[in-house]
């Protein structure tokens, strides 16, 4: 069918553009440790690790907020589940990273399935409020968990091990494991958003009425996306706990949830690359501006205002207009 191959032609360059930008970012990040050593600033490796951790968190939020139009204001709870999975299991003498990830993901899946099933009965502002409320419930649960340090949090004795090896102990090992997981999460979400499931999710974002009119009931798809996003965010939580060697309820406060939304707006929602850029840049700016002034939030706010005013589509929209990762359409 010649007209069919014509019809599919524009899809390819468009996708390739987004992928190219992502590959550039991965390559750039991979070069950070040797560069940091060359510059004599090994601290940069730690900063870059944090950047990537939050890029994973932002990516997970983009699935529901960007692709599913579900504005969750409680997404930081899943960072907490991942982080506390590390704290609880390592206290019980289980140090394996995969088990930590598994536990974080399992806890997140249960919490997301229960709270999502209730939250998704609401729309708009009510959805924002109810996810915020569930997020705060999770937050206060860990605040009152005195055996795990309560409000003060708890320091870990060591980082997780990988198959018995202390792969994460050094800053460099921590960095590359985080990068590998970032690549995995991005690749997985990239495939998912193009799949049948992704189409249904995106279609529901554009018009729930239309989806019902062609025979879809949106709820199970939205709930599944909500659970997947929670599980992926817990991966960032596991990494965050390991990076800081410390776990605290502050990871899951509503400020964090808000900050994740800010990352998406800054980077551009609904493109994955935008979320990744947003997560990386937000943490980079935080760390960078904080060096110059304790009032760094003023500067960050200014940048956010400028992006919102002059670059709809966020930083990734800006990059696209400059010719990087351009959409063909």
């Amino acid at each position: 069918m010649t007209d069919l191959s014509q019809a599919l032609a524009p899809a390819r360059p468009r996708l390739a553009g987004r992928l190219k930008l992502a590959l550039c970012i991965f390559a750039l990040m991979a070069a950070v440790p040797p560069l940091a050593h060359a510059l004599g600033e090994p601290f940069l490796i730690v900063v870059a690790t944090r950047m990537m951790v939050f890029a994973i968190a932002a990516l997970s939020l983009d699935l529901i907020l960007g692709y599913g139009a579900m504005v969750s204001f409680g997404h930081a709870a899943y960072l907490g589940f991942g982080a506390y999975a590390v704290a609880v299991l390592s206290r019980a003498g289980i140090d394996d990273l995969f088990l930590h990830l598994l536990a974080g993901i399992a806890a997140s899946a249960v919490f997301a399935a229960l709270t999502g099933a209730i939250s998704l009965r609401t729309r708009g502002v009510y959805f924002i409020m109810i996810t915020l409320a569930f997020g705060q419930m999770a937050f206060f649960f860990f605040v009152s968990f005195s055996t795990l340090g309560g409000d003060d949090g708890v320091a870990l004795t060591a980082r997780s091990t990988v198959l018995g090896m202390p792969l994460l102990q050094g800053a460099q090992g921590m960095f590359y494991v985080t990068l590998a997981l970032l690549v995995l999460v991005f690749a997985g979400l990239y495939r998912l958003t193009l799949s049948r499931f992704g189409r249904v999710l995106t279609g529901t974002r554009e018009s729930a009425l239309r989806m019902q009119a062609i025979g879809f009931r949106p709820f199970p798809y939205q709930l599944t996306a909500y659970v997947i996003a929670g599980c992926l965010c817990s991966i960032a939580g596991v990494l965050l706990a390991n990076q800081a060697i410390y776990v605290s309820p502050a990871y899951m406060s509503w400020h964090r949830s808000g900050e994740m939304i800010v990352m998406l707006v800054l980077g551009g929602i609904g493109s994955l690359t935008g979320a990744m850029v947003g997560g990386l840049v937000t943490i980079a700016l935080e760390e960078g501006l904080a060096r110059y002034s304790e009032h760094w939030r003023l500067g960050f706010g200014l940048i956010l205002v400028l992006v919102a005013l002059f670059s709809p589509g966020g930083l990734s929209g800006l990059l696209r207009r400059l010719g990087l990762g351009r959409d063909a359409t």
Partner: protein
Amino acid sequence: MTAPLLSVQNLSKSYGALKVTQDVSLDVREGRIHAIIGPNGAGKTTLISQLSGQLRPDSGRVVYDGRDITRLDMAGRVRLGLARSFQLTTLLPGFTALENVALAVQAREGSSFRFLRPAATEGALNDQAMACLADVGLADRARSQAGSLSHGEKRQLELAVALATRPRLLLLDEPLAGTGHEEAARLIAMFGGLKDRVTMVLIEHDMNAVFALADTVSVLVYGRIVASGSPAEVRADARVRAAYLGEEAA
């Protein structure tokens, strides 16, 4: 005589004191085009919405293919073969024309809980979607974004999406609204061609279209059916002339 494909029995719905549907009963036979006409505000779209499952009636029954579907939601009715098109298009603006139709094909073919394979590479989805686009004469616009299509093209795409659900009964809510003379003529010819495959309930203001296409015409005034019959009968009905056609003729 065979049982009707769709049987509406004593349907009523009110918004507060306003009775938008009053004791409406009608039968739609398989293979026919049943037009519903009436002045603005007569409750035509509200009636269609109750038939499609978007709105719940207060009382009465909707029986489709011998089955009571009064309490079935829209998605469930679509799966039984009862599809509708909207007066105000509700296409997915960010999707291409082909993707809009492919999604409708996907809805009835296989599970949509597939997470890894890109849907755009599924030949079966694209081939069927392309065939539906060709049916409505929109094949050359397959790769255009739905949001960028002209008004007439959106109407055509709306129809292609509805056809992709493989309906037995198609509810058409003013499919010609806002189209130009040529576009309207093309769409009318298309409905005529579809008649062998799909039963249709048609709401339309364009009387030329109604009298050219319909086998049966029901006239709805203030939520109530005041006349029902062949186009010739309805045209001759004095009450209809008074309530509706008379105004237009004047």
